[in-house]
């Protein structure tokens, strides 16, 4: 049973039936899924959701599938962690981490959007799924395609690090490395998407793919006891997730799952690739492209496809945004790891560093519920932090050696001694 009415152009409002297309035939504006909210309202309830398995399909009425979900049955419903120690460090009383670094099966928020895209791909009758990616997206597409038994083609720019390639190739897709710069890769992938009858998850299935991002927000609200947080900080790359958080909060109100609540949404970008933050600070909603130069490769998109909608959403919700230098990003990764035991990739370090700035600026008040969305896992980007962690001490297998070292290190420190208070 579907609750989808169809697709609507976000620019000229033209309606389309549900089909695998992503831009308006008239104005080339992006398309968005539209639902029958009145029917959803009479069908959905908190109790019904609570009775379902702990995965992202708990909110299936608000997702664009017609039948039963096909993949992602273990994806989503990641922990929402009360971050006492990080909160203390940042000076925020009620701080939470929504931790998609442990999302199943490929440890990033992309498992959400890909679960929805591939379930839709199967409903549309595609036998091949594809994407162009440098990391998390390719990992997720390859893994979910394997689970679904679909053919899979992954396109990567030539010269990508081995570790990032293996995180996808292990699942058995055909992986095509394309020579040329990112512009060339973009153009070729777009042409392949047009020519071959494949589900290119973030191209022709983009309207469905991006709907999966809403589940991140649905879960936060449910995990907070059906309350919308006051502030939420999320990294911006292509710009998929931020506008969808706002859409999710609005939908929850519209279908009666929450009564009220307004959330200010903040964007976090790396200083070496911050087109959205530059636009925000200039007071314009038009994004001037930049050439990325940052260690935060998973969010290094110089001309975000949905950048305009990111800025618009931030302005509508009363949020803001900030950027963080590579040094601040690495400090953010270390701070999150050392206070909350969560190892995130540079995108997550960016969010922590930006939250710190926004609190210091007084943009985020210290006494209101605030959520940081951690969208990726640090074990995939070990090289980024290799230079900033303490090197192991090497001693002989002799207790005296250790005694000497221990005294030298003067452990336990005061900080460790008070650990365990919470």
């Amino acid at each position: 049973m579907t609750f989808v009415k169809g697709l609507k152009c976000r620019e000229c409002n033209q309606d389309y039936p549900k089909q695998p297309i992503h831009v308006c035939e008239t104005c080339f504006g992006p398309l968005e899924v539209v639902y029958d909210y009145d029917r959803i309202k009479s069908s959905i309830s908190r109790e019904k959701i609570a009775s379902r398995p702990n995965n992202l399909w708990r909110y299936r009425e608000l997702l664009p599938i017609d039948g039963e979900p096909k993949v992602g049955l273990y994806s989503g419903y990641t922990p929402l962690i009360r971050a006492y120690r990080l909160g203390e460090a940042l000076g925020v009383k009620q701080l939470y981490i929504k931790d998609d670094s442990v999302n199943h099966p490929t440890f990033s928020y992309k498992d959400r959007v890909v679960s929805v895209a591939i379930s839709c791909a199967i409903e549309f009758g595609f036998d091949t799924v594809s994407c162009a990616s440098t990391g998390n997206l390719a990992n997720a597409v390859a893994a979910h395609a394997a689970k679904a038994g679909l053919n899979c083609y992954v396109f990567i720019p030539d010269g990508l690090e081995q570790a990032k390639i293996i995180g996808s190739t292990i699942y058995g897709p055909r992986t095509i490395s394309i020579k040329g710069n990112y512009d060339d890769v973009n153009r070729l992938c777009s042409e392949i998407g047009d020519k071959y009858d494949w589900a290119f998850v973030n191209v022709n299935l983009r309207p469905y793919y991006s709907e999966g991002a809403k589940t991140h927000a649905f879960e936060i609200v449910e995990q907070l006891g059906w309350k919308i947080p006051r502030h939420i900080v999320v990294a911006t790359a292509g710009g998929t997730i931020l506008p969808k958080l706002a859409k999710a909060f609005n939908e929850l109100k519209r279908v009666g799952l929450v009564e009220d609540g307004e959330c200010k949404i903040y964007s976090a970008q790396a200083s070496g690739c911050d087109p959205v933050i530059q636009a925000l600070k200039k007071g314009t909603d038009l994004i001037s492209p930049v050439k990325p130069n940052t260690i935060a490769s998973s969010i290094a998109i110089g001309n975000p496809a949905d950048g305009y909608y990111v800025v618009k959403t931030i302005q509508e919700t009363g949020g803001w945004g900030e950027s963080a230098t590579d040094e601040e990003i690495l400090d953010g990764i270390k701070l999150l790891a050392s206070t909350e035991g969560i190892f995130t990739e540079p995108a997550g370090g960016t969010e922590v560093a930006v939250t710190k700035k926004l609190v210091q600026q007084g943009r985020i008040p210290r006494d209101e519920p605030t959520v940081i969305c951690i969208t990726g896992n640090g074990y995939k980007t070990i090289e980024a932090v290799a230079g900033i962690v303490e090197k192991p001490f090497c001693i002989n297998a002799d207790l005296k050696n250790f005694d000497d070292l221990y005294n030298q290190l003067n452990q336990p420190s005061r900080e460790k001694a008070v650990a365990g208070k919470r």
Partner: protein
Amino acid sequence: MAAKKEKVRERVYLTFPGKLVKEPILCLMAKKFDILFNIRGSTVTKEIGLAALEVDSEREEIDRAIRWLKETGVLVEPIGKNVIE
């Protein structure tokens, strides 16, 4: 007899930096290359120009036109912009 070259249609998204906003770039492109194009959407401010184009021609001619646009300083992307994530 030479084989007839394949005609293709391509949708591109163009971003003009501020310094090119007052230049007649698309008009020059129309004069320089044997292409047909239709502007489906556009926005112009002092600082930036955006245009969504549907271009029809032979593949090589579209390639040449796109190369010229890039050399002129225009950012040329597929209509969905960044495909790589």
